[in-house]
């Protein structure tokens, strides 16, 4: 079989439909298939990334023979490829983690989970890979719908409520994006992103602004921007633990991808960038401040996640090469670190119904491994050397200093102090309080442990030697900012 970016979409989608069938054959098979698929996707990620990096080209895959700008195409550039690889590898780690998660849940339920999981992977990778704006919308819907369902996975009242809120706000998002695509189509007459970007300068500036704002708000909802992120804390809190990691690592990343793709490639308007910075700052400040006052672990992590996304938005908003580099680095770090925090945090409050911070008191004695990884993740996310978070924060600050955004630096650092306060509070609770809660603890399975350990190793390795990843990110940055070569390589395929 020829390795092709299409596999990113086709295989998980296929797997999603095959799981119930195989599930009939063998209970375990339904659980193993997603893993195989994700492992394969990780493998092709490595191959494809190696290919495009070494040959310095972009792979543009045409679906069903329709050439761009008419047909749907997939673009595997350093940037999109980086994100897609990240999604599939993270997906694999999360699959490892979920393999034995909640063994008491019955089989049909598990199959549903994996179906939705596969759908979500399809959607998220689809969003980053596709070169067609309407196709992007479709994948966004796939992602969103599977995300709604995963939120309400436990069929509880709170979960259903959270899912409903998500649905409510998510439908706003869909509507606005659809509206924007419609308007855009009326203006440029094409849905191919490369061509839209090419034709954009000719568009009426007023329409351009309206469309951009519609896109901005639409994607902003998915990217958890303030004040559009009301849905997210509840979702993070109510969804099953690993789903939180998926949200933080993929769904939100996909949303932010849509946003920056629109802003940087399609429209390329620099005027919106200060808005991004301001919104990002507010998002960050508000979210971290609220996280400080949270009494529930997952809710705290959720707000922290929002805050980190604010940081990413700020980084993109500064708009220089260095800052975009920092932003992508931040996205990567956030995916692995917050992923690990969610994964380990889930076990800290495994059987608790309220999932309050009181439940983690003194847990360090009973779950040493998980607690240690949670502590390590906390140190990493607040940006302590020698962990991964330090470098991304440093690069962002350097980028901000380059353009003299001293206030931004100051606010980021103040917020970091707040972050330190609430993360260390939790660490203190874990290690230095006496355990009071009587809730039965769950020892992580071997899969779950190794999944967390993989992420931890990546965190430390990147922290000690950032050059492991910075080369890739550098290429991704160049690719994202180089609009012309994107247009050229996509359309050149079309013209053949």
């Amino acid at each position, binding site marked *: 079989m020829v390795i092709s970016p299409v596999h990113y979409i086709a295989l998980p989608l296929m797997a999603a439909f095959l799981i119930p069938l195989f599930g009939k054959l063998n209970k375990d098979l339904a659980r193993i298939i997603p893993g195989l698929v994700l492992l394969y996707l990780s493998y092709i990620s490595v191959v494809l990334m190696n290919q495009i990096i070494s040959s310095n080209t972009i792979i543009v895959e045409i679906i069903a023979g329709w050439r761009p700008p008419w047909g749907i195409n997939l673009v595997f550039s350093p940037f999109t490829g980086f994100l897609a690889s990240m999604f599939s590898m993270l997906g694999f780690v999360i699959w490892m983690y979920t393999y034995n998660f909640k063994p008491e849940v019955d089989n049909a339920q598990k199959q549903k989970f994996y179906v939705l999981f596969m759908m979500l992977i399809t959607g998220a990778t689809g969003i980053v890979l596709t070169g067609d704006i309407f196709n992007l919308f479709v994948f966004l819907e796939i992602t969103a719908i599977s995300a709604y369902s995963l939120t309400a996975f436990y069929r509880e009242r709170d979960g259903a*409520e959270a899912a*409903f*809120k998500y649905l409510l*706000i998510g439908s*706003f998002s869909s509507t*606005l994006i659809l509206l924007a695509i419609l308007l855009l189509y009326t203006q440029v007459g094409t849905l191919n992103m490369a061509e839209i970007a090419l034709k954009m300068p000719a568009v009426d*500036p007023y329409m*351009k*602004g*309206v469309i*951009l*704002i*519609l896109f*901005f*708000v639409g994607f902003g*909802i998915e990217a958890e921007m303030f*004040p*559009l992120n*009301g*849905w997210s*804390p*509840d979702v993070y809190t109510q969804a099953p633990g690993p789903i939180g990691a998926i949200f933080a690592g993929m769904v939100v990343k996909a949303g932010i991808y849509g946003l920056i793709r629109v802003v940087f490639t399609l429209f390329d*308007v620099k*005027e*919106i960038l200060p*808005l991004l910075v301001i919104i990002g700052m507010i998002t960050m400040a*508000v979210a971290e401040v*609220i996280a*400080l*006052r949270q009494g529930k672990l997952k809710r705290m992590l959720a707000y922290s996640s929002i805050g980190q996304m604010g940081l990413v938005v700020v980084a993109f908003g500064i708009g220089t090469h260095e800052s975009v580099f920092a932003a992508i680095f931040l996205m990567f770090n956030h995916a692995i670190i917050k992923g690990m925090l969610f994964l380990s945090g889930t076990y800290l409050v495994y059987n608790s119904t309220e999932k309050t911070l009181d439940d983690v008191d003194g847990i360090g004695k009973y779950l040493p491994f998980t607690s240690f990884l949670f502590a390590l993740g906390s*140190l990493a996310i607040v940006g*302590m*050397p*020698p962990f991964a978070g*330090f*470098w991304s924060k*440093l690069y962002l*600050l*350097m980028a*901000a*200093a*380059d353009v003299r955004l*001293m206030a931004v*630096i*100051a606010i980021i*650092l*103040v917020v*970091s*102090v707040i972050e*330190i*306060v609430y993360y*260390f*509070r939790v660490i*203190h609770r874990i*290690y*230095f309080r006496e355990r009071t809660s009587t809730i039965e603890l769950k020892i992580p399975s071997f899969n779950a442990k190794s999944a967390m350990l993989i992420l931890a190793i990546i965190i430390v390795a990147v922290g000690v*030697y*950032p*050059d492991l990843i*910075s080369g890739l990110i550098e290429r991704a940055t160049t690719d994202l900012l180089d609009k012309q070569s994107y247009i050229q390589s996509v359309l050149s395929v079309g013209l053949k």
Partner: protein
Amino acid sequence: MNSLILLLILVFGGALLSYLLNKFLPILRDGFVVLLMLLVNYVFFTMDSATQIEFEIGGIHLQWAFSSAAFLFGIIVSILGLLSITYSTAYMQGKDRLGYFYMNFLFSIGSMLGILMSRDLISLFFFWEIMTWSSYLIVIYSGKDVDKRGLKYIVFSAIGAYSMLMAIVIIYGFTGSFLLTDIFDSIFAIKASYQLAIAILLMIGFGVKSAMMPLHVWASGAYSGSPMSFTALFSGALSKMGVFGFSLVLFNLVSNQNWLINEIIAWLAAITAVLATFYAVIQSDAKKLLAYSSIAQLGYIVIGLASGTYLGVMAGLFLAVLHAVFKGTLFMAVGAVEKQAGTTDMTKVSGLIRKMPWTFTASLISIIALAGIPPLGGFVGKWMLYEALITSDHYYLVIMVFLSSTAAFLYSYRILFGLFLGQEEPEFAHVKEAPLPMLIPMLLLSGISVLSGTFPGFILEPIQNAMVSFGFDPRLPNIEWWQLSVLFNSWGDKVVLQNVMISITAVFLIALTLITWKGYKKQRYVTTKDISSSGEIIQAEDNMTFQIDFYKPFERAIWPLLKRKIDDYYTDFGNGLEALFDLVKRIYNGNGQFYAIYVMAFLALLLIAGTKYFGF
């Protein structure tokens, strides 16, 4: 192999190894850490001063080398590190999680060496943060009162570190380089206001570690809460990293014309010194007392540096070295008391002098050095400090320093009296002298205190080397260190240390001989229960020692200053912030309709604003 890399590999690798050793071969652990530190000392002292290394990581150019200033502080770190780890082997005997302890101990030593050898700001910050969390992990080692003590330490460290980071990125933003050499050249091209901002931010960063008012509130808890063997290093060497940073800021980053910064720092340090001394006076726990005393002493050091004159800087650095020596000894002595008697609460323990005579001797010498009484080393430092301040017309600063160091006599006496003097209690009858690994470091260090009082040359020479790198002309006469015994100030007045020593020793010995000779045969020891107390016969279990509310009259005299601690302001500020945060929290009220309204309102706002302001 490059000896810098070797040094780091030795310490950090040794740290991990000691953790593993504790897991698998705990017998070898103690010997291993001591040998390791000996090896580190060997590598450090045999190192060629020109050794340097440059490399690039994550697109950032880094450079490591020991400057002569860094070398001075390196001496403190390596020697005090060796001694305190030797001390630890006995002090930590029988405690659990020793692997964790030694690993973090060595991590902090390694990170301090790293800070000193950094010739660029990124590795400086990198090691700084490692130092922060490794010391933090030891601060919370005991697990007591962590929520308050540990959080305070980490939050203040974070504030300091992030201000430093901000300054670093601002510097980078203007100069485009992290290398100190580049920065020193181009720093003066930056706009003055930014220079000021950089200086202030860096000063906050370093001020936290050197416990400057009002950033000192973490220090008393962190110093008194860690195991004493680490506190010796913590107060002696780790806080000196802040001083090292100050010296960088004051002599390399802020131009000397900017006298305002120097004045501000000096006054802040003076207020620190006075208030911390007052707090130290009213403490009843020996550890807390020493913690506050450390804060005050760091104040003197910073005043010396900030005075900017030759003598003042020399005084500051001299006191920095000496503070490591005598405060290290004192923390070790208090640790010995804690280990042997089980408590350092001065209202409980008393009369240990006959049980622990050597510990007492070491602490007596250190206290005399600390109080700055001739003929010990502390006096040399204090003398230079006063003369420097007077000759550079800082008259009121002199008064502040004097107030602080006079009040320091109060706590100096308190700690000696509280632990060692007073009545002997049957409760502490079992107490024995500290074991040798604890005694030897203390006695060695107090030996340095004594020697430096008459022959300060052996400390002043490395200091002068360091000062040359700050741009001062060498002024010490070019003679061997044991000949250097006359100190001059810039008005030509002097003190002849050897005469002082000779006079004091001679009179002391003669008087002691005479007083001992008379009635030597008849005189005998009576217990401290045999005192004249209106004829009452004191039983063994009666404790007549005066310990509670020791300095109550003094407290009453200075109560307006103590009425409200700076801690309280922070607490109020924190509570206010939290209330504000709770208001912010109400944004997310959990109601989906509200969220929908937010979305629509935001959209509408953007549409309105977009047409108006964004110009499309």
